[in-house]
Protein backbone atom coordinates (compact mmCIF):
# COMPACT_ATOMS: atom_id res chain seq x y z
CA UNK A 1 0.00 0.00 0.00
CA UNK A 2 1.14 3.52 -0.70
CA UNK A 3 0.78 4.55 2.93
CA UNK A 4 2.94 1.75 4.26
CA UNK A 5 5.90 2.79 2.13
CA UNK A 6 6.15 5.95 4.22
CA UNK A 7 5.39 4.40 7.61
CA UNK A 8 8.34 4.24 9.99
CA UNK A 9 8.73 2.49 13.28
CA UNK A 10 9.22 4.96 16.11
CA UNK A 11 9.33 3.27 19.51
CA UNK A 12 8.84 5.48 22.56
CA UNK A 13 10.68 4.78 25.79
CA UNK A 14 7.45 3.17 27.01
CA UNK A 15 7.93 0.57 24.30
CA UNK A 16 5.07 1.55 22.04
CA UNK A 17 5.51 2.06 18.33
CA UNK A 18 3.98 5.39 17.31
CA UNK A 19 4.10 4.41 13.60
CA UNK A 20 5.11 7.77 12.18
CA UNK A 21 4.34 8.59 8.59
CA UNK A 22 6.90 10.55 6.60
CA UNK A 23 5.75 13.66 4.80
CA UNK A 24 5.22 13.29 1.07
CA UNK A 25 7.49 15.23 -1.26
CA UNK A 26 4.45 17.12 -2.58
CA UNK A 27 3.40 18.16 0.94
CA UNK A 28 6.90 19.33 1.76
CA UNK A 29 7.17 21.28 -1.48
CA UNK A 30 3.85 22.96 -0.73
CA UNK A 31 5.01 23.82 2.80
CA UNK A 32 8.22 25.33 1.44
CA UNK A 33 6.35 27.41 -1.12
CA UNK A 34 4.00 28.73 1.59
CA UNK A 35 7.00 29.68 3.75
CA UNK A 36 8.74 31.34 0.83
CA UNK A 37 5.62 33.38 0.07
CA UNK A 38 5.38 34.50 3.71
CA UNK A 39 9.03 35.59 3.71
CA UNK A 40 8.64 37.42 0.40
CA UNK A 41 5.49 39.22 1.51
CA UNK A 42 7.23 40.35 4.71
CA UNK A 43 10.14 41.56 2.64
CA UNK A 44 7.85 43.53 0.33
CA UNK A 45 6.16 45.06 3.35
CA UNK A 46 9.51 46.19 4.74
CA UNK A 47 10.49 47.57 1.36
CA UNK A 48 7.29 49.61 1.10
CA UNK A 49 7.82 50.83 4.64
CA UNK A 50 11.41 51.85 3.89
CA UNK A 51 10.43 53.63 0.70
CA UNK A 52 7.64 55.60 2.36
CA UNK A 53 9.90 56.43 5.31
CA UNK A 54 12.70 57.90 3.21
CA UNK A 55 10.62 59.22 0.34
CA UNK A 56 11.22 62.77 1.50
CA UNK A 57 14.98 62.43 1.24
CA UNK A 58 14.97 61.55 -2.44
CA UNK A 59 14.86 58.51 -4.67
CA UNK A 60 18.56 57.70 -4.37
CA UNK A 61 18.30 56.93 -0.65
CA UNK A 62 15.13 54.95 -1.26
CA UNK A 63 16.86 52.84 -3.88
CA UNK A 64 19.77 52.24 -1.55
CA UNK A 65 17.50 51.24 1.34
CA UNK A 66 15.64 48.87 -0.96
CA UNK A 67 18.92 47.35 -2.06
CA UNK A 68 20.02 46.75 1.53
CA UNK A 69 16.69 45.27 2.50
CA UNK A 70 16.71 42.87 -0.41
CA UNK A 71 20.31 41.74 -0.03
CA UNK A 72 20.71 41.59 3.73
CA UNK A 73 17.10 41.49 4.89
CA UNK A 74 16.27 38.52 2.74
CA UNK A 75 19.31 36.64 4.02
CA UNK A 76 18.61 37.36 7.69
CA UNK A 77 14.86 36.97 7.43
CA UNK A 78 14.74 33.61 5.70
CA UNK A 79 17.35 32.05 7.95
CA UNK A 80 15.89 33.40 11.19
CA UNK A 81 12.40 32.44 10.07
CA UNK A 82 13.16 28.81 9.44
CA UNK A 83 15.50 28.31 12.38
CA UNK A 84 13.37 30.13 14.96
CA UNK A 85 10.16 28.31 14.04
CA UNK A 86 11.78 24.90 13.87
CA UNK A 87 13.38 25.44 17.27
CA UNK A 88 9.93 26.18 18.67
CA UNK A 89 7.55 23.87 20.49
CA UNK A 90 5.97 22.47 17.36
CA UNK A 91 9.23 22.12 15.40
CA UNK A 92 7.53 23.42 12.27
CA UNK A 93 7.38 26.60 10.22
CA UNK A 94 3.90 28.02 9.50
CA UNK A 95 4.00 26.34 6.08
CA UNK A 96 4.72 23.00 7.69
CA UNK A 97 1.98 23.58 10.24
CA UNK A 98 -0.54 24.21 7.52
CA UNK A 99 0.57 21.02 5.79
CA UNK A 100 0.51 19.18 9.16
CA UNK A 101 4.21 18.38 9.17
CA UNK A 102 6.95 18.60 11.76
CA UNK A 103 10.69 18.05 11.95
CA UNK A 104 11.86 15.08 14.00
CA UNK A 105 15.31 13.69 14.80
CA UNK A 106 15.81 10.45 12.91
CA UNK A 107 17.28 8.64 15.89
CA UNK A 108 14.18 9.34 17.98
CA UNK A 109 15.98 11.68 20.36
CA UNK A 110 15.38 15.36 20.94
CA UNK A 111 15.59 17.71 18.02
CA UNK A 112 18.77 19.60 18.86
CA UNK A 113 19.66 23.15 17.91
CA UNK A 114 22.61 22.10 15.78
CA UNK A 115 20.42 19.77 13.75
CA UNK A 116 18.00 22.61 13.01
CA UNK A 117 20.85 24.96 12.13
CA UNK A 118 22.52 22.35 9.92
CA UNK A 119 19.38 21.47 7.98
CA UNK A 120 18.61 25.11 7.33
CA UNK A 121 22.18 26.11 6.50
CA UNK A 122 22.14 23.44 3.83
CA UNK A 123 19.02 25.00 2.33
CA UNK A 124 21.19 27.97 1.37
CA UNK A 125 23.34 25.66 -0.69
CA UNK A 126 20.51 23.59 -2.05
CA UNK A 127 18.25 26.35 -3.19
CA UNK A 128 19.28 29.95 -2.61
CA UNK A 129 22.89 29.90 -3.77
CA UNK A 130 22.24 28.28 -7.17
CA UNK A 131 19.32 30.68 -7.74
CA UNK A 132 21.49 33.66 -6.86
CA UNK A 133 24.20 32.44 -9.20
CA UNK A 134 21.58 32.17 -11.88
CA UNK A 135 20.68 35.84 -11.48
CA UNK A 136 24.12 37.22 -10.66
CA UNK A 137 26.09 35.68 -13.49
CA UNK A 138 23.16 34.76 -15.65
CA UNK A 139 24.44 36.30 -18.88
CA UNK A 140 26.19 33.21 -20.18
CA UNK A 141 24.29 30.06 -21.08
CA UNK A 142 26.91 27.97 -19.28
CA UNK A 143 26.14 29.50 -15.89
CA UNK A 144 22.44 29.04 -16.55
CA UNK A 145 23.00 25.37 -17.16
CA UNK A 146 25.28 25.02 -14.15
CA UNK A 147 22.79 26.82 -11.90
CA UNK A 148 19.81 24.86 -13.14
CA UNK A 149 21.69 21.57 -12.90
CA UNK A 150 22.80 22.11 -9.31
CA UNK A 151 19.40 23.41 -8.18
CA UNK A 152 17.69 20.58 -10.00
CA UNK A 153 19.99 18.00 -8.49
CA UNK A 154 19.32 19.23 -4.96
CA UNK A 155 15.60 19.77 -5.49
CA UNK A 156 15.12 16.31 -6.95
CA UNK A 157 17.13 14.65 -4.18
CA UNK A 158 14.07 13.92 -1.97
CA UNK A 159 12.48 12.02 -4.85
CA UNK A 160 15.35 9.59 -5.09
CA UNK A 161 15.66 8.22 -1.58
CA UNK A 162 13.41 6.02 0.43
CA UNK A 163 12.90 8.51 3.26
CA UNK A 164 12.19 11.62 1.15
CA UNK A 165 15.21 13.33 2.73
CA UNK A 166 16.67 16.48 1.34
CA UNK A 167 20.42 16.92 1.60
CA UNK A 168 19.97 19.09 4.68
CA UNK A 169 17.92 16.40 6.41
CA UNK A 170 20.48 13.79 5.51
CA UNK A 171 23.31 15.73 7.12
CA UNK A 172 21.38 17.03 10.10
CA UNK A 173 19.99 13.59 10.95
CA UNK A 174 16.38 14.73 10.77
CA UNK A 175 13.30 13.82 8.82
CA UNK A 176 9.94 15.43 8.31
CA UNK A 177 6.90 13.49 9.47
CA UNK A 178 3.19 14.01 9.11
CA UNK A 179 1.29 14.99 12.16
CA UNK A 180 -2.37 14.82 11.26
CA UNK A 181 -4.61 16.46 13.81
CA UNK A 182 -7.31 13.81 14.17
CA UNK A 183 -10.55 14.61 15.96
CA UNK A 184 -12.26 11.83 17.81
CA UNK A 185 -15.44 11.01 15.88
CA UNK A 186 -18.47 9.18 17.23
CA UNK A 187 -18.72 5.40 17.21
CA UNK A 188 -20.55 4.16 14.19
CA UNK A 189 -22.98 1.29 14.05
CA UNK A 190 -24.99 2.24 17.15
CA UNK A 191 -28.52 1.24 16.43
CA UNK A 192 -31.55 3.23 17.33
CA UNK A 193 -33.77 1.47 19.87
CA UNK A 194 -36.68 1.68 17.49
CA UNK A 195 -34.75 0.00 14.68
CA UNK A 196 -35.93 -3.50 13.77
CA UNK A 197 -33.89 -6.53 14.80
CA UNK A 198 -31.56 -7.98 12.22
CA UNK A 199 -30.32 -11.51 12.70
CA UNK A 200 -27.33 -12.72 10.71
CA UNK A 201 -26.12 -16.28 10.37
CA UNK A 202 -22.47 -17.24 10.93
CA UNK A 203 -22.06 -17.82 7.21
CA UNK A 204 -23.33 -14.35 6.45
CA UNK A 205 -20.83 -12.81 8.86
CA UNK A 206 -17.99 -14.85 7.34
CA UNK A 207 -18.34 -12.99 4.07
CA UNK A 208 -16.00 -10.15 5.04
CA UNK A 209 -12.82 -9.36 6.96
CA UNK A 210 -11.24 -6.37 8.72
CA UNK A 211 -10.44 -4.42 5.57
CA UNK A 212 -14.08 -4.44 4.44
CA UNK A 213 -15.26 -3.64 7.96
CA UNK A 214 -13.14 -0.51 7.99
CA UNK A 215 -14.37 0.58 4.57
CA UNK A 216 -17.92 0.10 5.87
CA UNK A 217 -16.98 2.25 8.88
CA UNK A 218 -15.94 5.02 6.47
CA UNK A 219 -19.23 4.79 4.62
CA UNK A 220 -21.26 4.93 7.81
CA UNK A 221 -19.24 7.85 9.08
CA UNK A 222 -19.88 9.82 5.93
CA UNK A 223 -23.59 8.92 5.78
CA UNK A 224 -23.70 9.79 2.11
CA UNK A 225 -27.02 8.51 0.70
CA UNK A 226 -25.74 7.25 -2.60
CA UNK A 227 -22.86 5.23 -1.16
CA UNK A 228 -25.17 3.86 1.54
CA UNK A 229 -27.48 2.47 -1.15
CA UNK A 230 -24.64 1.10 -3.28
CA UNK A 231 -22.86 -0.55 -0.35
CA UNK A 232 -26.07 -1.95 1.13
CA UNK A 233 -26.98 -3.52 -2.22
CA UNK A 234 -23.50 -5.00 -2.64
CA UNK A 235 -23.52 -6.56 0.82
CA UNK A 236 -27.06 -7.84 0.49
CA UNK A 237 -26.21 -9.53 -2.78
CA UNK A 238 -23.06 -11.06 -1.36
CA UNK A 239 -24.70 -12.54 1.73
CA UNK A 240 -28.03 -13.39 0.04
CA UNK A 241 -30.00 -11.12 2.36
CA UNK A 242 -33.75 -11.45 2.02
CA UNK A 243 -34.87 -9.76 5.24
CA UNK A 244 -35.41 -6.28 3.74
CA UNK A 245 -35.21 -3.23 6.05
CA UNK A 246 -33.92 0.36 5.73
CA UNK A 247 -30.44 0.62 4.19
CA UNK A 248 -28.96 2.62 7.07
CA UNK A 249 -30.44 0.32 9.73
CA UNK A 250 -29.26 -2.71 7.82
CA UNK A 251 -25.70 -1.42 7.44
CA UNK A 252 -25.45 -0.38 11.08
CA UNK A 253 -26.70 -3.75 12.21
CA UNK A 254 -24.36 -5.60 9.90
CA UNK A 255 -21.42 -3.43 10.96
CA UNK A 256 -22.12 -4.05 14.63
CA UNK A 257 -22.54 -7.79 14.19
CA UNK A 258 -19.42 -8.12 12.03
CA UNK A 259 -17.39 -5.92 14.35
CA UNK A 260 -18.44 -7.88 17.43
CA UNK A 261 -17.52 -11.13 15.76
CA UNK A 262 -14.13 -9.98 14.44
CA UNK A 263 -13.22 -8.32 17.73
CA UNK A 264 -14.16 -11.45 19.65
CA UNK A 265 -11.94 -13.51 17.36
CA UNK A 266 -9.19 -10.92 17.80
CA UNK A 267 -9.18 -11.58 21.53
CA UNK A 268 -8.51 -15.22 20.76
CA UNK A 269 -5.69 -14.26 18.44
CA UNK A 270 -7.59 -14.94 15.23
CA UNK A 271 -7.26 -12.07 12.76
CA UNK A 272 -8.80 -11.95 9.34
CA UNK A 273 -7.30 -9.28 7.12
CA UNK A 274 -9.88 -9.22 4.33
CA UNK A 275 -12.50 -11.28 2.55
CA UNK A 276 -9.84 -13.22 0.63
CA UNK A 277 -8.16 -14.67 3.70
CA UNK A 278 -9.55 -17.79 5.32
CA UNK A 279 -12.39 -17.35 7.79
Amino acid sequence: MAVDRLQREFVTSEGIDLRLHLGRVSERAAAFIIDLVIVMVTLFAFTLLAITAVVGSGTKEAAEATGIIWLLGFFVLRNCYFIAFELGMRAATPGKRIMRLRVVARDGGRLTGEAVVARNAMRELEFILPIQMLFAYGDGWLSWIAGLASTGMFLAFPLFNRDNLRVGDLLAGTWVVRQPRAELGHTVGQRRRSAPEFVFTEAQLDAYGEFELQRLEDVLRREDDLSLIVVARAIQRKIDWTGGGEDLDFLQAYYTALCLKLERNMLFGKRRADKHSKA
Partner: protein
Amino acid sequence: MSGLDIAPALHVSSHRFREARSIDWYRLEELLARIEKGKASSLDDDDLFELPVLYRSTLSSLSVARETSLDTDLVTYLESLSTRAYFILYGVHSPFWRRVSHFFANELPAAVRGMWRETLVSLLITVVGAVAAYAMVTANPDWYFGFISADMAQGRDPSATVQTLRDTIHGADPEHLGFFATYLFVHNAGVALLAFALGFAFAAPTSLLMIYNGCTLGAMVAVFASKGLGLEFGAWLAIHGTTELFAIILAGAAGMRIGMATAFPGRLARLASAVKAGRSAAFVMVGVVVMLVVAGLLEGIGRQVVDNTLSRTLIGGAMLLFWLVYYYLKPARSRAAAMETP
Protein backbone atom coordinates in the same frame (compact mmCIF):
# COMPACT_ATOMS: atom_id res chain seq x y z
CA MET B 1 -28.30 10.36 17.37
CA SER B 2 -28.80 10.91 21.08
CA GLY B 3 -27.08 8.74 23.66
CA LEU B 4 -30.35 7.63 25.26
CA ASP B 5 -31.77 6.20 22.09
CA ILE B 6 -29.14 3.52 21.68
CA ALA B 7 -29.72 -0.17 22.26
CA PRO B 8 -27.22 -0.83 25.10
CA ALA B 9 -26.61 -4.53 24.55
CA LEU B 10 -25.22 -4.09 21.10
CA HIS B 11 -22.32 -1.74 21.80
CA VAL B 12 -19.13 -2.72 20.09
CA SER B 13 -16.23 -2.80 22.52
CA SER B 14 -14.68 0.39 21.15
CA HIS B 15 -17.78 2.30 22.28
CA ARG B 16 -17.46 1.14 25.89
CA PHE B 17 -13.75 1.79 25.67
CA ARG B 18 -14.30 5.34 24.46
CA GLU B 19 -16.82 6.05 27.18
CA ALA B 20 -14.50 4.85 29.91
CA ARG B 21 -11.36 6.60 28.76
CA SER B 22 -12.16 9.58 26.60
CA ILE B 23 -12.22 11.99 29.56
CA ASP B 24 -8.48 11.48 29.92
CA TRP B 25 -7.86 11.97 26.23
CA TYR B 26 -9.82 15.20 26.05
CA ARG B 27 -8.04 16.49 29.14
CA LEU B 28 -4.64 15.68 27.60
CA GLU B 29 -5.68 17.32 24.36
CA GLU B 30 -6.63 20.48 26.20
CA LEU B 31 -3.30 20.64 28.07
CA LEU B 32 -1.34 20.03 24.86
CA ALA B 33 -3.24 22.77 23.06
CA ARG B 34 -2.31 25.21 25.80
CA ILE B 35 1.36 24.25 25.63
CA GLU B 36 1.47 24.41 21.83
CA LYS B 37 0.01 27.89 21.92
CA GLY B 38 3.00 28.92 24.01
CA LYS B 39 1.01 29.30 27.22
CA ALA B 40 2.96 26.61 29.04
CA SER B 41 3.38 28.97 31.98
CA SER B 42 -0.39 28.97 32.53
CA LEU B 43 -0.19 25.32 33.65
CA ASP B 44 -0.23 24.99 37.42
CA ASP B 45 1.49 22.28 39.46
CA ASP B 46 -1.48 19.93 39.29
CA ASP B 47 -1.56 20.14 35.50
CA LEU B 48 2.15 19.44 35.30
CA PHE B 49 1.86 16.40 37.55
CA GLU B 50 -1.11 15.21 35.57
CA LEU B 51 0.51 15.54 32.15
CA PRO B 52 2.81 12.47 32.21
CA VAL B 53 0.08 10.38 33.81
CA LEU B 54 -2.39 11.33 31.09
CA TYR B 55 0.26 10.69 28.46
CA ARG B 56 0.96 7.17 29.74
CA SER B 57 -2.71 6.37 30.03
CA THR B 58 -3.24 7.52 26.44
CA LEU B 59 -0.33 5.39 25.26
CA SER B 60 -1.78 2.40 27.05
CA SER B 61 -5.18 3.15 25.51
CA LEU B 62 -3.47 3.13 22.15
CA SER B 63 -1.87 -0.25 22.60
CA VAL B 64 -5.11 -1.73 23.98
CA ALA B 65 -7.10 -0.24 21.11
CA ARG B 66 -4.70 -1.63 18.54
CA GLU B 67 -5.07 -5.12 19.95
CA THR B 68 -8.78 -5.20 20.69
CA SER B 69 -10.59 -2.74 18.51
CA LEU B 70 -11.23 -2.52 14.79
CA ASP B 71 -12.38 1.09 15.03
CA THR B 72 -9.93 2.95 12.74
CA ASP B 73 -11.19 6.33 13.83
CA LEU B 74 -10.27 5.56 17.43
CA VAL B 75 -6.82 4.18 16.61
CA THR B 76 -5.98 7.09 14.31
CA TYR B 77 -7.05 9.59 16.92
CA LEU B 78 -5.01 7.92 19.65
CA GLU B 79 -1.93 7.67 17.42
CA SER B 80 -2.12 11.34 16.62
CA LEU B 81 -2.67 12.35 20.24
CA SER B 82 0.14 10.15 21.58
CA THR B 83 2.56 11.47 18.96
CA ARG B 84 1.78 15.07 19.83
CA ALA B 85 2.17 14.35 23.52
CA TYR B 86 5.40 12.43 22.99
CA PHE B 87 7.11 15.29 21.21
CA ILE B 88 6.00 17.79 23.80
CA LEU B 89 7.02 15.68 26.78
CA TYR B 90 10.31 14.36 25.44
CA GLY B 91 11.33 17.29 23.28
CA VAL B 92 11.49 19.73 26.18
CA HIS B 93 13.48 22.77 25.17
CA SER B 94 14.79 25.64 27.12
CA PRO B 95 13.46 29.01 25.87
CA PHE B 96 14.63 30.18 22.48
CA TRP B 97 16.75 33.12 23.65
CA ARG B 98 18.52 31.06 26.29
CA ARG B 99 19.44 28.54 23.62
CA VAL B 100 20.75 31.31 21.38
CA SER B 101 22.90 32.80 24.11
CA HIS B 102 24.14 29.35 25.11
CA PHE B 103 25.08 28.80 21.49
CA PHE B 104 27.21 31.92 21.23
CA ALA B 105 28.69 31.56 24.70
CA ASN B 106 29.59 27.89 24.54
CA GLU B 107 28.69 25.81 21.51
CA LEU B 108 30.24 28.03 18.84
CA PRO B 109 33.68 28.50 20.45
CA ALA B 110 33.75 24.79 21.33
CA ALA B 111 32.96 23.81 17.74
CA VAL B 112 35.64 26.13 16.36
CA ARG B 113 38.12 24.85 18.92
CA GLY B 114 37.33 21.25 17.96
CA MET B 115 38.27 22.08 14.40
CA TRP B 116 41.74 23.48 15.12
CA ARG B 117 43.52 20.90 13.00
CA GLU B 118 41.47 21.66 9.90
CA THR B 119 41.78 25.39 10.60
CA LEU B 120 45.57 25.12 10.66
CA VAL B 121 45.59 23.17 7.39
CA SER B 122 43.24 25.68 5.83
CA LEU B 123 45.45 28.56 6.99
CA LEU B 124 48.54 26.80 5.72
CA ILE B 125 47.04 26.24 2.28
CA THR B 126 46.03 29.90 2.05
CA VAL B 127 49.51 31.04 3.10
CA VAL B 128 51.20 28.69 0.62
CA GLY B 129 48.96 30.05 -2.14
CA ALA B 130 49.70 33.63 -1.13
CA VAL B 131 53.49 33.14 -0.92
CA ALA B 132 53.59 31.28 -4.23
CA ALA B 133 51.58 33.95 -6.02
CA TYR B 134 53.67 36.70 -4.42
CA ALA B 135 56.90 35.07 -5.60
CA MET B 136 55.57 34.47 -9.10
CA VAL B 137 54.21 37.97 -9.62
CA THR B 138 57.38 39.56 -8.21
CA ALA B 139 59.52 37.48 -10.57
CA ASN B 140 57.34 38.10 -13.61
CA PRO B 141 54.44 40.61 -13.44
CA ASP B 142 52.72 38.87 -16.37
CA TRP B 143 51.60 36.16 -13.98
CA TYR B 144 49.35 38.69 -12.29
CA PHE B 145 46.50 38.22 -14.74
CA GLY B 146 46.74 34.48 -14.26
CA PHE B 147 45.38 35.03 -10.76
CA ILE B 148 43.17 38.06 -11.05
CA SER B 149 40.72 38.81 -13.82
CA ALA B 150 40.69 42.26 -15.38
CA ASP B 151 37.29 43.32 -14.06
CA MET B 152 38.23 42.26 -10.53
CA ALA B 153 41.54 44.18 -10.74
CA GLN B 154 39.79 47.43 -11.71
CA GLY B 155 43.05 49.04 -12.79
CA ARG B 156 45.03 47.70 -9.84
CA ASP B 157 47.60 45.86 -11.99
CA PRO B 158 51.41 45.92 -12.31
CA SER B 159 51.32 48.56 -15.07
CA ALA B 160 49.43 51.06 -12.90
CA THR B 161 51.21 54.11 -11.56
CA VAL B 162 51.93 54.62 -7.86
CA GLN B 163 49.35 57.41 -7.78
CA THR B 164 46.56 55.28 -9.25
CA LEU B 165 47.25 52.51 -6.74
CA ARG B 166 47.38 54.96 -3.86
CA ASP B 167 44.02 56.36 -4.95
CA THR B 168 42.42 52.93 -4.83
CA ILE B 169 43.52 52.64 -1.22
CA HIS B 170 42.57 56.09 0.00
CA GLY B 171 39.97 57.24 -2.45
CA ALA B 172 36.79 56.87 -0.43
CA ASP B 173 33.42 57.04 -2.11
CA PRO B 174 31.23 58.24 0.75
CA GLU B 175 27.98 57.52 -1.06
CA HIS B 176 26.25 54.15 -0.98
CA LEU B 177 28.36 52.90 1.92
CA GLY B 178 25.53 50.81 3.28
CA PHE B 179 24.77 49.21 -0.02
CA PHE B 180 28.43 48.54 -0.71
CA ALA B 181 28.87 46.83 2.67
CA THR B 182 25.84 44.68 2.05
CA TYR B 183 26.97 43.74 -1.41
CA LEU B 184 30.39 42.68 -0.11
CA PHE B 185 28.81 40.65 2.64
CA VAL B 186 26.56 38.72 0.28
CA HIS B 187 29.47 38.08 -2.08
CA ASN B 188 31.74 36.82 0.70
CA ALA B 189 28.99 34.74 2.26
CA GLY B 190 28.60 33.07 -1.12
CA VAL B 191 32.32 32.26 -1.27
CA ALA B 192 32.30 30.91 2.29
CA LEU B 193 29.24 28.76 1.71
CA LEU B 194 30.82 27.44 -1.46
CA ALA B 195 33.97 26.46 0.43
CA PHE B 196 31.78 24.67 2.96
CA ALA B 197 29.51 23.00 0.40
CA LEU B 198 32.34 21.76 -1.79
CA GLY B 199 33.74 19.93 1.21
CA PHE B 200 31.44 17.02 0.46
CA ALA B 201 33.54 16.12 -2.55
CA PHE B 202 36.25 14.78 -0.21
CA ALA B 203 37.57 18.29 0.54
CA ALA B 204 39.52 18.57 -2.75
CA PRO B 205 37.56 21.50 -4.24
CA THR B 206 37.65 23.28 -0.89
CA SER B 207 41.44 23.07 -0.84
CA LEU B 208 41.61 24.44 -4.37
CA LEU B 209 39.34 27.32 -3.42
CA MET B 210 41.54 28.13 -0.41
CA ILE B 211 44.66 28.07 -2.58
CA TYR B 212 42.98 30.34 -5.10
CA ASN B 213 41.90 32.72 -2.35
CA GLY B 214 45.51 32.81 -1.10
CA CYS B 215 46.82 33.40 -4.65
CA THR B 216 44.56 36.40 -5.16
CA LEU B 217 45.84 37.85 -1.91
CA GLY B 218 49.49 37.19 -2.72
CA ALA B 219 49.25 38.65 -6.23
CA MET B 220 47.61 41.84 -4.95
CA VAL B 221 50.21 42.26 -2.24
CA ALA B 222 52.99 41.73 -4.77
CA VAL B 223 51.71 44.56 -7.01
CA PHE B 224 51.38 47.05 -4.20
CA ALA B 225 54.65 46.03 -2.53
CA SER B 226 56.56 46.48 -5.79
CA LYS B 227 55.45 50.13 -5.81
CA GLY B 228 56.43 50.65 -2.19
CA LEU B 229 52.83 50.71 -0.98
CA GLY B 230 53.01 47.39 0.89
CA LEU B 231 52.38 48.82 4.32
CA GLU B 232 49.49 51.03 3.28
CA PHE B 233 47.89 48.16 1.33
CA GLY B 234 48.38 45.92 4.35
CA ALA B 235 46.48 48.39 6.52
CA TRP B 236 43.78 48.81 3.86
CA LEU B 237 43.36 45.05 3.85
CA ALA B 238 43.75 44.48 7.57
CA ILE B 239 40.85 46.61 8.79
CA HIS B 240 38.34 44.07 7.53
CA GLY B 241 40.67 41.40 6.15
CA THR B 242 41.60 39.89 9.50
CA THR B 243 37.93 39.15 10.14
CA GLU B 244 37.10 38.21 6.58
CA LEU B 245 40.07 35.98 5.89
CA PHE B 246 39.64 34.30 9.26
CA ALA B 247 36.01 33.62 8.38
CA ILE B 248 36.88 32.17 4.98
CA ILE B 249 39.61 30.03 6.51
CA LEU B 250 37.10 28.71 9.05
CA ALA B 251 34.60 28.00 6.27
CA GLY B 252 37.30 26.08 4.44
CA ALA B 253 38.09 24.18 7.65
CA ALA B 254 34.41 23.28 8.06
CA GLY B 255 34.31 22.03 4.48
CA MET B 256 37.46 19.96 5.06
CA ARG B 257 36.03 18.49 8.25
CA ILE B 258 33.05 17.16 6.32
CA GLY B 259 35.19 16.03 3.41
CA MET B 260 37.57 14.12 5.65
CA ALA B 261 34.69 12.59 7.60
CA THR B 262 33.19 11.36 4.33
CA ALA B 263 36.49 10.08 2.97
CA PHE B 264 37.76 8.49 6.20
CA PRO B 265 34.73 7.60 8.31
CA GLY B 266 36.74 5.48 10.75
CA ARG B 267 34.59 3.14 12.79
CA LEU B 268 31.33 4.88 11.89
CA ALA B 269 29.26 4.27 8.79
CA ARG B 270 30.11 6.78 6.07
CA LEU B 271 26.79 8.56 6.34
CA ALA B 272 26.81 8.63 10.15
CA SER B 273 30.30 10.08 10.08
CA ALA B 274 29.23 12.79 7.61
CA VAL B 275 26.23 13.61 9.80
CA LYS B 276 28.40 13.99 12.88
CA ALA B 277 30.87 16.24 11.10
CA GLY B 278 28.04 18.12 9.37
CA ARG B 279 26.58 19.25 12.67
CA SER B 280 29.70 20.76 14.15
CA ALA B 281 30.55 22.22 10.75
CA ALA B 282 27.12 23.86 10.60
CA PHE B 283 27.85 25.50 13.96
CA VAL B 284 31.08 26.91 12.62
CA MET B 285 29.26 28.19 9.55
CA VAL B 286 26.90 30.23 11.70
CA GLY B 287 29.96 31.83 13.27
CA VAL B 288 31.40 32.41 9.80
CA VAL B 289 28.26 34.23 8.68
CA VAL B 290 28.34 36.47 11.75
CA MET B 291 32.01 37.25 11.11
CA LEU B 292 31.26 38.09 7.50
CA VAL B 293 28.55 40.54 8.57
CA VAL B 294 31.12 42.25 10.78
CA ALA B 295 33.71 42.16 7.99
CA GLY B 296 31.24 43.63 5.52
CA LEU B 297 30.48 46.50 7.89
CA LEU B 298 34.18 47.15 8.50
CA GLU B 299 34.97 47.01 4.80
CA GLY B 300 32.05 49.01 3.50
CA ILE B 301 31.79 51.62 6.22
CA GLY B 302 34.80 51.44 8.53
CA ARG B 303 37.38 51.47 5.78
CA GLN B 304 35.78 54.37 3.96
CA VAL B 305 35.50 56.46 7.08
CA VAL B 306 38.86 55.63 8.68
CA ASP B 307 41.45 56.74 6.13
CA ASN B 308 44.61 56.40 8.13
CA THR B 309 47.16 53.61 7.94
CA LEU B 310 47.81 53.37 11.67
CA SER B 311 44.16 53.33 12.81
CA ARG B 312 43.27 50.85 10.08
CA THR B 313 46.00 48.50 11.30
CA LEU B 314 44.94 48.96 14.92
CA ILE B 315 41.29 48.20 14.19
CA GLY B 316 42.24 45.16 12.13
CA GLY B 317 44.61 43.91 14.84
CA ALA B 318 42.05 44.44 17.57
CA MET B 319 39.45 42.47 15.62
CA LEU B 320 41.87 39.58 15.09
CA LEU B 321 42.73 39.59 18.78
CA PHE B 322 39.05 39.61 19.67
CA TRP B 323 38.23 36.60 17.47
CA LEU B 324 41.24 34.66 18.74
CA VAL B 325 40.34 35.27 22.38
CA TYR B 326 36.66 34.52 21.75
CA TYR B 327 37.28 31.32 19.86
CA TYR B 328 40.32 29.87 21.57
CA LEU B 329 40.80 31.36 25.03
CA LYS B 330 37.33 32.10 26.42
CA PRO B 331 36.21 29.24 28.68
CA ALA B 332 33.34 27.37 27.03
CA ARG B 333 31.45 24.25 27.94
CA SER B 334 29.79 22.40 25.10
CA ARG B 335 26.97 19.99 25.79
CA ALA B 336 27.62 18.16 22.52
CA ALA B 337 31.33 17.73 23.23
CA ALA B 338 30.63 16.65 26.79
CA MET B 339 28.40 13.87 25.48
CA GLU B 340 30.97 12.71 22.94
CA THR B 341 33.82 12.16 25.38
CA PRO B 342 33.33 8.82 27.10
